[in-house]
C-alpha cells in the first residue's frame, strides 16, 4: 500500500513538473510581448532586438498609441469594438433563428437547405473576396463605409454556422414544445418564452465566438477599407507596422497595441470560459 502511495506521489510530482514546463512554454510569448511593449521606441530602440528585458521600462509606446496626432490607433480600436459588438448581437440572433427553425420545425426543403449549406461551406472564402468587395462597393459600403460593410458581410453569411446552436436545441426535449402547443402557444411564443430562456449557455457561447472573430479579421477588412485608414480595424492597422517597410521601428509599438487588444478579449474569455467549454464540447461531439 505504501509503495502504491509513493508511486502515486512520484507520478504526481512528475505531472506537476510537466505542467509547469508546459505553462512556461505557453506563456513565454505573451510575457515576451508584454516586456517588449515597455521598451521605448524613443529612448531605447523600436525595432527588433535579441534581448528580452528592456534596459529601461517606459510607457512611450502606449503614449504613442493614444496620441491621435501620430496614429489612428484609438479610432481603429473603436472601429473594431463597434464591429465586434454589432456582429456579436446580430449573428447570435440570426443563428438562434436558423437553429430553431432547423431543429424544431419540419418543412419541405429542410434537408436540402442543410446539405446545400454544408457544401457551400467547403468553398474557400478568399476566392469570393474580390466579388464581395465590388458588391459592397455597389452599396457604397467600402472605404469610408467599410465598417457597416464588414458587419453586413459577416452577418449575412453567418446563418451557415448554425451547427453548435442547433445541436444544443436538439438536446432540449421536444415534449416540452408539444405540451405548450397543446395549450395553444404559437411557435413564435414557444421560441421566445420557452426555448430562449433555456439557452443561456449557447447564447453566450455564440455571442462570445462572434465577438472574438472580428479582432482577427485582417484579410477581408483590409480589402474593404481599401487604403482608407480611418476605416481600418486594429488587425489591418497594426499588421502594417510589422509588414511594411514604411514603418521602421514600429515593432515595440505593435507589441503595445497587441497587448491592449489582447486584454479585453482575454478578460471576457476568462469570465465566460465555462460557456465556451460547453459550446465547443457540445459542438465537437455533435460534429
Amino acid at each position, binding site marked *: 500500500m505504501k509503495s502504491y502511495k509513493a508511486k502515486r506521489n512520484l507520478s504526481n510530482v512528475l505531472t506537476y513538473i510537466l505542467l509547469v514546463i508546459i505553462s512556461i512554454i505557453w506563456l513565454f510569448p505573451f510575457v515576451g510581448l508584454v516586456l517588449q511593449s515597455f521598451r521605448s521606441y524613443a529612448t531605447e530602440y523600436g525595432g*527588433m532586438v535579441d534581448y528580452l528585458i528592456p534596459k529601461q521600462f517606459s510607457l512611450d509606446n502606449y503614449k504613442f498609441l493614444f496620441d491621435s496626432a501620430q496614429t489612428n490607433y484609438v479610432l481603429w480600436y473603436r472601429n473594431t469594438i463597434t464591429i465586434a459588438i454589432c456582429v456579436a448581437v446580430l449573428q447570435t440572433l440570426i443563428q438562434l433563428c436558423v437553429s430553431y427553425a432547423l431543429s424544431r420545425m419540419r418543412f419541405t426543403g429542410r434537408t436540402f437547405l442543410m446539405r446545400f449549406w454544408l457544401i457551400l461551406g467547403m468553398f474557400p472564402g478568399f476566392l469570393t473576396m474580390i466579388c464581395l468587395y465590388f458588391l459592397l462597393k455597389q452599396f457604397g459600403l467600402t472605404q469610408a463605409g467599410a465598417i457597416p460593410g464588414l458587419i453586413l458581410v459577416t452577418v449575412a453569411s453567418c446563418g451557415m454556422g448554425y451547427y453548435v446552436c442547433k445541436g444544443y436545441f436538439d438536446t432540449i426535449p421536444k415534449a416540452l414544445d408539444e405540451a405548450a402547443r397543446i395549450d395553444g402557444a404559437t411557435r413564435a411564443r414557444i421560441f421566445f418564452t420557452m426555448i430562449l430562456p433555456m439557452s443561456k449557455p449557447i447564447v453566450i457561447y455564440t455571442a462570445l465566438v462572434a465577438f472574438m472573430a472580428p479582432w482577427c479579421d485582417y484579410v477581408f477588412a483590409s480589402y474593404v477599407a481599401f*487604403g482608407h*485608414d480611418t476605416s481600418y480595424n486594429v488587425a489591418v492597422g497594426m499588421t502594417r507596422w510589422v509588414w511594411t517597410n514604411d514603418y521602421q521601428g514600429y515593432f515595440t509599438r505593435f507589441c503595445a497595441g497587441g497587448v491592449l487588444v489582447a486584454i479585453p478579449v482575454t478578460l471576457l474569455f476568462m469570465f465566460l470560459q465555462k460557456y465556451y467549454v460547453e459550446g465547443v464540447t457540445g459542438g465537437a461531439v455533435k460534429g
Partner: protein
Amino acid sequence: MKKKLVSVMLTAAMGMSLLAGCGNSAAEVAETATEVAETATEVAETATETAAEVAEEITDYGTGEVKVWVADNVVDFTNEQIAKFQEAHPEMSGYTFTVEPVGEGDAAGNMITDVEAGADIYAFAQDQIARLVTAGALEVVEDANAEVVKSENDAGAVAAATVGGTLYAYPITSDNGYFLYYDKSVVKDPSTLEGIIADCEAAGKNFYFELNSGWYQTAFFFGTGAELTYETNDEGNFTTCNSSYASDKGVVALKKMLEVASSKSFQNGSSVSNATNCAAIVDGTWDAQAAKDMFGDNYACAKLPTFEGADGKTYQMSGFGGFKLLGVKPQEDDMKLAVCDALAAYLSGEEVQMARYDAVLWGPSNLKAQQSDAVKADEALSALADQLQYTIPQGQYPGDYWSLATSLGDSIISGEVKADADDATLMQVLTDFQTTCESYAK
C-alpha cells in the same frame, strides 16, 4: 427656408435617379447634357487658346475631390504642400484634396484591384510602373509637363518613368538605391565584402543582405557583368528580354552569393528595424534615421564593397539605382485631370523635392535640387551617390521577375542550391532562371 426646399428637391431628384434603375436613363440624359457642354467648352478652349494667358484665369475647373496616396511618414508634409498649392491656384478652389496614408507597395496593388476607387494621384516605386500601365491605372503625362519633367530630372529618373516611348509618371526621388550602413567599431574596412564578413564573424555580429530580393541580388549579378533588362511597348507589355545570367559571369556571381549565404554572420534582410545584433546592412536612404538610431555613435556608411570572385578577379558590387514616382490615374473628367496634372507637377517640382528632403531626407531626382549643399553634405546620400556610378538605372521589369528572384534567393539561403555544387549544376540553375525570365517577354 428656400435652401431647405432646394435640398429636399435634390434628395428627391437623387431618389428618382436611383429609382430609374440605378440611374440608367437619367444618367444618360445627364451625359448627353455634359457632352454638349463639353463640345461647347472645347470650342471655347480653341478660341481662347489663341488668346494665350488670359484664358487660364477664366477657365472654370468646376468642383471635385482629389484623393492622394502617399506613405504614412509624408502625409503631413504632403498636406502642407497641397495647402501651398491651393494658395497658388485660387482658380482650383472648387476642389477638395484628401491625403491618405497608403504605402508605395499597397498603392500599386490597390490601384490594380480597383482603379475607380483608387487615388487620383499616388506615389509608387518604379518597379510597379509597367503593371500599372497595363492595368490602365496611369495617365500619360501631359505634353507641357512632360517637357519640364524631362529637362529638370536626371536621365535615370526619366527613363524609369517611361514605358515604351511614353512618359507615364513624375519622378519624385532618385534615392531608391542601396549601399552599406555599418558599425565602424566592428567593421574596420568596408571596402571588401570578405573583410566585412570576416569582421562580423569575429565580433559575433550579423551582416544583413536581402539575398532573396530581385532588387538586391543584382548587386552580385550586375557586378560581375551579367545582364538582365527588358524592353516594353507603349501598353506596358514586355517585348524583349536581354539576359546573360546563364554565363560564366553569372556563375561567379551565384557562387559568391552561395558563399555569403553560408557565413554564420549572414542574415537575409534589408530592414534596419527588423535587424538584431547588426554590424553591417545593405539598405537604402529611407532607413538612414533608423540606422543612426541603431548604430548610435558608430554610424557610418559607404558604397558597396568589392568582392573577389571564384575566378580570382575582383568585382565591384553593382545593383539598381531606382526611383520613386508620382502617378496620375486616368480621369473621366478633363477639368479634374487638369487639376491632377497641375498638382502632380507641383508635388514633383524642384521646390517641393527640396522641401521633402528637408522634411524626411528623401533624395531628390531634380537636377538642381541634387546640386544643393544640404543634399551634397548628406552622408547617406553621398554614399549612395558613390554607389550610383556602379549601378544601372532600373528600367522596367515584369512583376513575375521579382517573385522568381525571390525563389532563387530562397533556394540559395535554404541550401537547396548547394554551396559546393559544381559549375555545371550552377549553370543549369541559371539557365532555368534565364529561360523563365525570357518567357515573361512575348
